[in-house]
């Protein structure tokens, strides 16, 4: 019984001593990942699975020539701290790549990228 009590006490200590929080993975985005849109969007919004640390979370959008087309810097939505958004310059039809690198509030870093296409081009 002493061993069992010790294990329960250790488990309780660990549970109380740390706040569980997962890695921030991409949940969804607007424009959607890999999608084709008819109208050029004015901004890109990405929803993550965890709250983000604004100072260390970035979101960039580049065109096919690798040129930045966002007006940056990206902002974490105050009303939705797991959402990162950035406004875009007026963009033409073509394929654009969204690149993100975020720090969740439990200090885990994740990164990734995806593309979307604005229809109407050649």
């Amino acid at each position, binding site marked *: 019984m002493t061993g069992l009590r010790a294990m329960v006490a250790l488990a309780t200590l660990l549970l109380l001593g740390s*706040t569980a*929080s997962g890695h921030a993975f991409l949940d969804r985005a607007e424009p959607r990942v890999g999608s084709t849109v008819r109208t050029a969007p004015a901004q890109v919004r990405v929803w993550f699975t965890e709250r983000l640390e604004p100072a*260390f979370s970035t979101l960039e959008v580049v065109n096919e020539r690798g040129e930045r087309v966002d007006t940056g810097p990206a902002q974490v939505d105050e009303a939705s701290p797991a959402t990162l958004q950035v406004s875009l310059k007026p963009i033409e039809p073509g394929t654009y790549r969204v690149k993100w690198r975020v*720090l969740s509030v*439990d200090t885990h870093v994740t990164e990734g990228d995806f593309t979307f296409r604005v229809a109407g081009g050649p």
Partner: protein
Amino acid sequence: MTSHPLRAALAVMLALCAWPALARAHGLAGKRFFPSTLTIDDPFVADELSLPTFLHIKQPGDSEAPAGQFTNISGEFSKRIFPDFGITLGGEWNLLDPAPNNQTESGFGNLEVTLKYQFFTNTAHETILSAAFGWEAGGTGRQKAGAESFDIFRPAILFGKGMGDLPEALAWLKPFAVTGIVEGVLPSRSGNKKLTTNDDGDLEVEIEKNPNVFHWGFAVMYSLPYLQSFVRDVGLPVIIKSLIPLVEIDINNPLDRGFAGKTTGTVNPGIIWAGKYFQIGLEAVVPINERTGKNVGIRGQLHFFLDDLFPNTLGRPLFGGR
């Protein structure tokens, strides 16, 4: 405004703690999340707990043991000592029905300790390489329940490779990944002496030989989370977009002591659901030949991500930051 210096200092501290964590936890290499596979060892070093892993299969008989049901319940606790170096402690409980003595026997298997060093990580190419050395401590389990009386050493090389670097024309193949292992299984004793009584009541000495074994295996998986997040949002429901179907191949090639060429192995198709703090996996265990068995078994696993459950305590390396 007066809080700026403090905030800046905190920000710098946070940055120093946080950025090195990339690709060093939770089976991540760049964009790629490698789940913990059920049958073969993982190529990454992480803080994790597999408890329990459950296996049930009917084993074939041979000249020394009758055919019977084999049930195994095991657990593994992996802890990072340094960010790229960790230790795994493993234990198991076996039920043999019947055991070689024609009785139903159960008991713990030998304890296992494995050291693993993740010596190469390439985030752009979603590649991981690691080296491991395992030790099964002979005599720590119950011999009647299948535990060996001698030590077994397991030097191994493990790898993981995601296909996210394929060209855009092959975008639908990017969610594929493969992990694998090549391993030596080296018993510390070449054979065991066994005393038996023959039909005339005389004692006889038999030698059970313990071959060196070349063990290899790999897992091929297609990650629906990767598809949704990095390739194409195809609108999968929440429960489906966390699934990773996979097939694991697990082969043992005995090399010597009369067992050369007597290959055994299994093909293990299954699926993993990966959540925020844990994953659940289920696989069929299909023998590749009659020597391995004739019946399909089942393997299941509950696996916890300790780095997410306890990010400030159990879920971080003992030394060297996050």
